[in-house]
């Protein structure tokens, strides 16, 4: 075992095709270089890298808040932070992680870089709009974090900002307004990205790249983009209403003027639950690609998986009120069955992933380890989610640490998936691999840390500990479990440090080559990093694995039964 990358046993076959005689030297001279390039570029790869770096920094900031929260909860009457500071910390932890890290990392960072290349496009459909998206996102991020520097501190009403706690009486101060402003900015950023991804996927696919030859990652991003377009405008509208309530004397969410506080919850969760899948689907896509490549097999049940993704997208628009079961003002059975049904397509995906690994030749690189870590963690988070779709069980666990544990299992699974994505596609973006030994150390800290962190929180919830409390009574049995959970958070923190160390240590050390993993999709057909408009040449596209088909001509996917598809029918070239 070397400390460098395990090379594949079979090095990718050098394509026999003669390269089209485009001189790469000309390609390198596009536009300015250095910092000016980062500021002015409309290249999807540069914007994607900006997104990746910014979102990763946000993850570290949100993670630092989490470590302070865990330190505070280690003892029953923690005095590390005051009640007011604690409320700001968990509000900003949730807000930074959801709005500034997970979302943009999912649908803007890797998506920006990979989706156009996977479908053989030269760039996103609207490159300038893409640049605008990034700058709105960066501005929004700075706006939100600047709340810490104003009188009264940052927003402190939780990341869900329930009315009437979020009105100007209960939460005066500029921090809350900056929070609303930040979400308007990042919300428009997301909407523009959604428009861009839809247009790119619908109009810029290479010849031969039919919808059912798109890689799963691209498919998931398409469904994500559609969900963004359906959900984010609702949040934006709600935020404007909230702002009007705070400053212009409207009473949309206040009882006194004839308004309805619960309306905010409806608006928020009508965005908020699709948002869960807006976050999750891109990571599902990453993991799908990685599992297929490192098992050296096609995605098992490719078409079934696409329909599962589509039905998740459709169902996710009809489940929002399962966050509101305990309000007593929603129709319980409808939202219960809709929520339970989401388990079915999610389960299909789980079986697709296992079926892809089944009888494969699995190569456990760091990316694959992270992907398997995702499967296990997501399994735990998914199963505990089923309980919460049942109203009586939700009455019992709502707003306790059980819920906190459930969604942290899910989001930590997404972090594992995102790390898998960085190890897998990082070399394509930068041209250099990361160190595998440090990567594996990072994996074990992250994976074990996640379980040590979340599992005690399930028990805390079942023993009645509510969420968003800064202190808890001495007489409870909660301290021990809180201590264990804090240990898990520290392990996760160490894994983050390991990642930063890895990036610094591996800086331009291990050249990746064009196709280090024997990849299957189009991004592995071009150089690392790809040239200005991504491709000098393209292979024939006859399945969702054009690069694999090209490199392994005798090993195209086996058709099932007698359903033989005439592959050449739609081939344009």
């Amino acid at each position, binding site marked *: 075992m070397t400390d460098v990358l395990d090379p594949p046993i079979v090095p990718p076959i050098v394509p026999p095709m003669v390269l089209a005689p485009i001189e790469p030297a000309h390609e390198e001279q596009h536009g300015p270089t250095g910092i000016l390039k980062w500021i002015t570029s409309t290249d999807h790869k540069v914007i994607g890298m900006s997104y990746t770096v910014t979102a990763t920094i946000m993850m570290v900031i949100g993670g630092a808040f989490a470590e302070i929260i865990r330190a505070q909860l280690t003892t029953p009457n923690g005095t590390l932070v005051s009640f007011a500071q604690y409320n700001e910390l968990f509000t900003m932890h949730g807000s930074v992680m959801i709005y500034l890290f997970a979302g943009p990392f999912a649908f803007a960072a890797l998506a920006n870089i990979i989706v156009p290349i996977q479908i053989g496009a030269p760039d996103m459909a609207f490159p300038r709009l893409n640049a605008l998206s990034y700058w709105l996102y960066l501005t929004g991020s700075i706006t939100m974090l600047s709340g810490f520097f104003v009188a009264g501190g940052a927003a402190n009403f939780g990341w869900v900002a329930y009315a009437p706690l979020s009105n100007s009486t209960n939460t005066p101060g500029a921090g809350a307004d900056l929070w609303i402003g930040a979400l308007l900015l990042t919300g428009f950023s997301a909407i523009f990205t959604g428009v861009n991804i839809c247009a790119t996927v619908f109009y810029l696919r290479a010849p031969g790249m039919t919808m059912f030859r798109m890689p799963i990652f691209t498919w998931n991003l398409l469904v994500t983009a559609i969900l963004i377009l359906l959900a984010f405008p609702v949040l934006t509208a709600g935020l404007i209403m909230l702002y009007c309530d705070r400053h212009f004397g409207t009473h949309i969410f206040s009882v006194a003027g004839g308004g309805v*506080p619960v309306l905010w919850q409806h608006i928020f969760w009508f965005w908020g639950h699709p948002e869960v899948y807006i976050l999750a689907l891109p990571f599902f896509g990453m993991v799908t690609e990685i599992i297929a490549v490192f098992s050296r097999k096609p995605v*098992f049940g490719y078409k079934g998986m696409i329909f599962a993704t589509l039905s998740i997208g459709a169902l996710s628009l009809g489940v929002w009120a399962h966050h509101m079961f305990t309000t007593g003002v929603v129709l319980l059975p409808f939202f219960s069955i809709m929520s339970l049904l989401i388990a079915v397509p999610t389960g299909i995906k789980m079986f697709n992933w296992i079926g892809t690994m*089944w009888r494969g030749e699995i190569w456990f690189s760091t990316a694959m380890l992270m992907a398997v870590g995702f499967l296990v963690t997501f399994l735990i988070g998914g199963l505990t989610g089923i309980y919460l779709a049942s109203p009586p069980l939700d009455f019992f666990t709502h*707003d306790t640490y059980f819920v906190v544990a459930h969604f942290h299992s899910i989001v930590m699974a997404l972090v594992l998936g995102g790390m898998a994505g960085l190890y897998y596609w990082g070399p394509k973006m930068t041209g250099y691999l990361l160190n595998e030994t440090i990567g594996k150390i990072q994996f074990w800290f992250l994976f074990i840390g996640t379980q040590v962190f979340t599992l005690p929180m399930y028990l805390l919830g079942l023993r*009645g500990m509510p969420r968003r409390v800064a202190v*808890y009574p001495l007489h409870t049995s909660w301290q021990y479990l809180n201590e264990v959970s804090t240990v898990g958070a520290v392990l996760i923190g160490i894994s983050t440090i390991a990642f930063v160390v890895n990036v610094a240590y591996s800086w331009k050390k291990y050249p990746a080559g064009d196709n280090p993993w024997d990849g299957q999709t189009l991004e592995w057909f071009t150089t690392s990093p790809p040239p200005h408009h991504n491709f000098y040449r393209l292979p024939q596209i006859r399945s969702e694995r054009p690069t694999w088909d090209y490199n392994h001509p005798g090993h195209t996917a086996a058709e*099932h039964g007698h359903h033989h598809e005439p592959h050449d029918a739609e081939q344009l070239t």
Partner: protein
Amino acid sequence: MEPPALTPRGVSQRTPRWRRVRRIAALPIAALALAGCTVPTFGAVPGATTSSKSVYHLWQGFSIGAVLIGVLVLLLILWSVIFHRRKSANIPKQSQYHIPLEMTYTIVPILIVFGLFVATLVVENKEVANPTTNVTINVNAFQWGWKFTYPDKNVVVVGQTTQDPVMVMPVDTNVHINLTSSDVIHGFYVHAFNFSRYALPGVLNQFTLFAVNTGTYNGQCTQLCGLYHSLMFFRVEVVPMTQYNAWLSSKANAAVAQAAENATKQQTSSVVPTKPYKSQGGY
């Protein structure tokens, strides 16, 4: 307790592989048979009310399903991870579709989901029913405390933050709760009742508790309600009916003048909060 059902040896002429599969399939059945004696708690408690007990059993049912499915999926993942590691440079068979298998893992989960839904409905309909009752308590949540009003006797119990106001209620009878909030949203949560409900401004939330065990139980606000959310405790004391009546009468007599004064305020506030909503003119 019966041992897991296995066909006698020799009767079956099936292949060893089939036998192995069946033996694996028999394991969960054996686990269930064992569980018939003592179903594990899966971390929950039966609680002190009729509803809390049925919620607890629903929890156990969901948990058995979750554990079985979780273990099955985990084994499948581990199996692939252990036995399908890269052993050679060979390219594995590029199989992609298996329609019967795909149908199975679509249809079986749908059936499971409908099973869970039916179980949910049965428990839920019992829990949200509001049978007629003689005992009514108005619970009003405010930043940051609780007010328990017994409208029949005009008795009021108020406590803020760490004062832990006590809600006294009789055992073995339906107790009707009218839950309101005076300001922001709060969460009425009693762990031993396996139950919580939002106290919403402008909304009257009603539910019924039927306690079966006497005792003192901790309650706490679960919905973030501002600065001192962490300290919004209360207690519930479930006592026999005679003791409850005695307590109520003594409370009523002890502060008859006080109660009469409160009554004028309370009769209206028991249904709709009359405190002017704080945001009025607050911008």
